């Protein structure tokens, strides 16, 4: 596990979970394609997650944090945010919100852009009454394109093309924790 992971040089934002391409897989001639933290030489994270329970409101999570994750100096190519709203009334009407945002890719110039697109599996943005945790969402999942995370490296032969976040499995797990 790598600790001490600023999101980008000069940005003190620290993701809750991050994945950065292991240096061992990067040939020397492609090393320049992956941004590094000048302090430690670590490859900056390509895939980040932010989890919020009490700390970050949805506007902070989505409107403030996401632009930082996809700033020009950050290397984030995919971001997933999860927010759990605990029902403090004791009625256990817990709610949740989940979103996936990907950095846009320009196929003409073969470069990543500083713009983003929200994955259609993301929950709708509402000002109140987010999705109830007790409502099943069978088959709903986030799909993370591994090729995009490791570009310009080729996908290893036996590497699954996508990582999946099974949102229904996640929902059931959280429900189980909160019961």
């Amino acid at each position: 596990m790598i600790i001490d992971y600023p999101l980008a040089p000069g940005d003190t934002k620290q993701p809750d979970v991050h994945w950065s391409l292991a240096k061992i897989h990067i040939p020397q001639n492609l090393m320049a394609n992956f941004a590094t933290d000048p302090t430690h030489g670590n490859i900056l994270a390509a895939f980040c997650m932010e989890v919020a329970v009490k700390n970050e409101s949805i506007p902070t999570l989505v409107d403030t944090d996401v632009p930082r994750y996809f700033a020009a100096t950050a290397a984030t190519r995919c971001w997933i945010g999860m927010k759990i709203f605990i029902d403090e009334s004791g009625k256990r009407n817990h709610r949740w919100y989940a979103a996936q945002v990907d950095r846009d890719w320009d196929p003409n110039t073969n470069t990543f852009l500083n713009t983003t697109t929200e994955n259609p599996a993301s929950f709708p943005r509402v000002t109140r009454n987010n999705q109830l945790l007790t409502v099943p969402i069978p088959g709903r999942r986030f799909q993370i394109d591994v090729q995009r995370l490791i570009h310009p490296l080729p996908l290893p032969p036996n590497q699954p093309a996508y990582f999946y976040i099974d949102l229904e499995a996640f929902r059931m797990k959280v429900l189980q924790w909160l019961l």
Partner: protein
Amino acid sequence: MSAPQSITVSIPPNPPRSVKHVPRRQTQLAQTVSQPSCTLIQPTVRLPASHVLRSGTQYQYGHLVEYRRRNQALYKTFRKCYQEYIANKTLDAASKKELDAIRVSSEEFDELVVKKELRGKIELIRGTIVFNVWTVFPHGTVITWLSRHVDNQDTNELFDSGTGVRKTCLFDRANDYRLSIGTW
């Protein structure tokens, strides 16, 4: 952050107290100061690789000696807060306000807390040192579950995963849980 620039300056005969390991005669020589663009990091003082005595004897150093001046204000404020925290398990508002006013870099946090393996729950969160701050369940549990969920699919170990949060303990990523009431 732009690359550090090198400039040459003359260090005054009486060096600041924090540069206490620099011999007096060496400080009278011109020294190279690497000036980082980030103001949080104190300048690094590089001593010359050799120096000549009045007798003409020349001493060659086998290694490049680097001194990083300590951020004395941060050190003093942190020490005061830490002692309060260890003694009372809490901080008074004035001390906390004083510490919150100082932006702390990862390197400074390393020097102050991590390398000294200080007791207690001390973290660097977004440039601020915090004491005894716990996440609300199931924050840490969710992080661990998601991390494991993705890592299990990374069959070629293409990625190194981790948490960005600076912590004094490697095992408290799921830090919703205290060991027992009243413990760290």
